[in-house]
């Protein structure tokens, strides 16, 4: 059976232990969780950024190579040489030999007239005037122009590169069309994972390459607008209900932006798995701690309860043995008290027999002697009678009762009990009884037991020639309390032991002399009677016990 006390104790132990065990565990778990997340996110972002810059470098390198090739051709040939279409075709063959991405090559004069052309669309493009075209204006102004991607006659995405050359006061343009497949391939290499994507957009957010999932070439990408990005940025964004990681990096010429999209869950898969494992370990740890705490607490409280039960049992035994010891002491005291008068009576009887057996039995002197013997016998019988009566009174009061009690009478009687013992030890007991104190309602035998205990202690503490004072008093200011004060001039109680003297089994006497229960029992009796017991003591000077007894208990 669990008492409430033990339930509370168990609860306290469980809560305390769990606090001490779980708080560090959780702190550690959360710290690792966030530190790891941060570190991994940083790493992932860095990886995406590097990949974007890498791709941009490749694309830029490819474009620069094409531009350089065209510039070389334009600067190493004269207008006269290149306007010859057979020559132009020869040059174009050489260029195509190195790079299959060239679709056609043309020469345009400063008026925008297509002077020479080699490529698959000869009939459509030969003789066209580009004078009004935006790209023509741009290349005339800046000497180099790379176009955005557009679909040509064959519906293949491509773009043009145009460079100018000056001969005297004449300016002419060398223009090449380039298949953008190759750029598509470069960008595609950045499409990682199952859901990753990569594409290039121009300044108007129009797709320049074909993305894997998010739109068609020359359409709008299904992604946030990164067209204004300069340099490289990485950001998280929501796209299609899923969180994604975007890296955007700008290409210098043409002014395009390469965008890489990674599915955040895919990119962080390792992290998510690690987190998952960590949470499982943490939960398992918490479970183990909780289970362990419960088991330990349960066995501890059970053990405590067992010990308590055993102690209660042994306490009962000790109290019982203390009672028996007290009874034995009483019996021995009575034996001594009664044996002395018996010895005297026996001696008187013997003496009387001696006289009666002598020849001078009827002499005047012997008659006197006999009478004296009889008086002595009567005196001793009276003495014995007083002892047995006192004993009877003591026995009768064993049952708990409520009686009108004369405290003075009770004190006087108790003093009488112990007077002989004290007398033998050379100790004087003086009583000073206040005759004005009222009769009180209490349990006389219990009160007498307390008085006996305290006076017995006083006798034990006193030495030869000491005086024990027993004073009863009644304070008119508090008429409901009667006090009995027992003071001795004995050895006193050291300060450090003064607050322990009412503890059960605390004793300063040897093991054969005291059980250490007398004062403890007295204390509990006084509480039961509604009063209290107080002690004052100075080592070497003596001790005073004061009983405060309520007039109505």
């Amino acid at each position, binding site marked *: 059976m669990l008492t409430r006390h033990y339930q509370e104790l168990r609860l306290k132990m469980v809560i305390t232990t769990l606090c001490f065990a779980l708080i560090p565990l959780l702190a550690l778990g959360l710290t690792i969780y966030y530190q790891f997340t941060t570190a991994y996110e940083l790493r992932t972002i860095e990886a995406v950024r590097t990949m974007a810059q890498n791709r941009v470098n490749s694309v830029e390198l490819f474009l620069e190579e094409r531009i350089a090739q065209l510039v070389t051709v334009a600067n190493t040939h004269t207008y006269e040489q290149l306007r010859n279409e057979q020559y132009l075709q020869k040059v174009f063959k050489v260029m195509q030999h190195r790079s299959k991405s060239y679709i056609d090559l043309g020469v345009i004069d400063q008026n925008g007239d297509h002077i020479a052309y080699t490529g698959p669309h000869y009939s459509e493009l030969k003789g066209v005037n580009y004078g009004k075209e935006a790209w023509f204006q741009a290349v005339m102004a800046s000497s180099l122009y790379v176009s955005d991607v557009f679909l040509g006659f064959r519906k293949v995405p491509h773009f043009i590169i145009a460079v100018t050359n000056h001969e005297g006061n004449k300016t002419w343009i060398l223009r090449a069309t380039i298949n953008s497949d190759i750029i598509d391939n470069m960008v595609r290499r950045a499409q990682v994972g199952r859901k990753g994507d990569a594409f290039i957009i121009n300044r108007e957010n129009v797709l320049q390459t074909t993305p894997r999932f998010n739109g068609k070439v020359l359409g709008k990408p299904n992604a946030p607008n990164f067209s204004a990005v300069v340099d490289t940025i990485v950001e998280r964004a929501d796209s299609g209900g899923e969180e994604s990681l975007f890296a955007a990096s700008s290409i210098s010429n043409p002014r395009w932006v390469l965008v890489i999209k990674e599915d955040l869950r895919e990119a962080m898969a390792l992290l998510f798995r690690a987190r998952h494992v960590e949470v499982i370990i943490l939960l398992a740890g918490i479970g183990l701690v909780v289970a362990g705490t419960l088991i330990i607490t349960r066995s501890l409280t059970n053990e405590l309860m067992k010990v308590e039960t055993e102690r209660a049992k042994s306490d009962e035994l000790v109290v019982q043995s203390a009672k028996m010891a007290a009874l034995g002491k009483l019996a*021995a005291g009575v*034996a*001594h*008290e*009664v*044996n*002395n008068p*018996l*010895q*005297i*009576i*026996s*001696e*008187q009887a*013997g*003496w009387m027999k*001696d006289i009666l057996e*002598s020849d001078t039995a009827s002499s005047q002197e012997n008659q006197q002697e006999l009478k004296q*013997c009889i008086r*002595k016998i009567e*005196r*001793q019988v009276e003495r014995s009678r007083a002892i047995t009566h006192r004993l009877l009174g003591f026995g009768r009061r064993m049952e708990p009762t409520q009686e009108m009690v004369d405290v003075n009478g009770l004190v006087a009687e108790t003093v009488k009990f112990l007077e002989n013992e004290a*007398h*033998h*030890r*050379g100790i004087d007991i003086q009583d000073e009884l206040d005759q004005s104190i009222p009769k009180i309602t209490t349990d006389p035998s219990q009160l007498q037991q307390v008085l006996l205990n305290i006076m017995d202690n006083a006798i034990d503490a006193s030495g*030869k020639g000491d005086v024990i004072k027993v004073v009863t008093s009644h304070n008119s200011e508090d008429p409901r309390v009667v006090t009995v004060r027992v003071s001795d001039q004995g050895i006193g109680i050291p300060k450090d032991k003064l607050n322990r003297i009412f503890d059960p089994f605390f004793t300063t006497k040897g093991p054969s002399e005291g059980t250490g229960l007398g004062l403890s029992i007295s204390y509990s009796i006084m509480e039961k009677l509604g009063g209290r017991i107080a002690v004052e003591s100075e080592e070497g000077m003596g001790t005073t016990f004061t009983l405060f007894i309520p007039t109505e208990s």
Partner: protein
Amino acid sequence: MERFSVLIVDDEVDFTETIVKRLKGRGLDADGVNSGEEALRLMETREYDVVVLDVKMPGLDGIETLREIKKRKPYTEVIMLTGHGSVESGIKGLQLGAYNYIMKPVTLDELMEHMTQAYERRIIEAQRREDAERSEQRP
């Protein structure tokens, strides 16, 4: 029976008075005192063969008196007498050299028997000491 000297020490005056009269009537050299101090004082002035000593007395109690007697007159036999059935004080008395330990009440005949035995032991012990001294003197 041989006449020997006895000192009765007990705080009960009625007891000592009467028993002294009875012992004298039986031909013993008996005296009675009522405290250990008185007994020791009296023993300064004369020798007793046997001392009967009550254990429980105010002032110098039986055990202390016994210790003093054995210190001053080690060959005096002492019989302890008590109304208190305490085995402990009996053992203590015997350890300190008392001849015997008797519980009150005791009849005079019984007490006489113990006293006589104690006296006899005293005689035998004295004889033995004398023999020992003589054998030491002889080379």
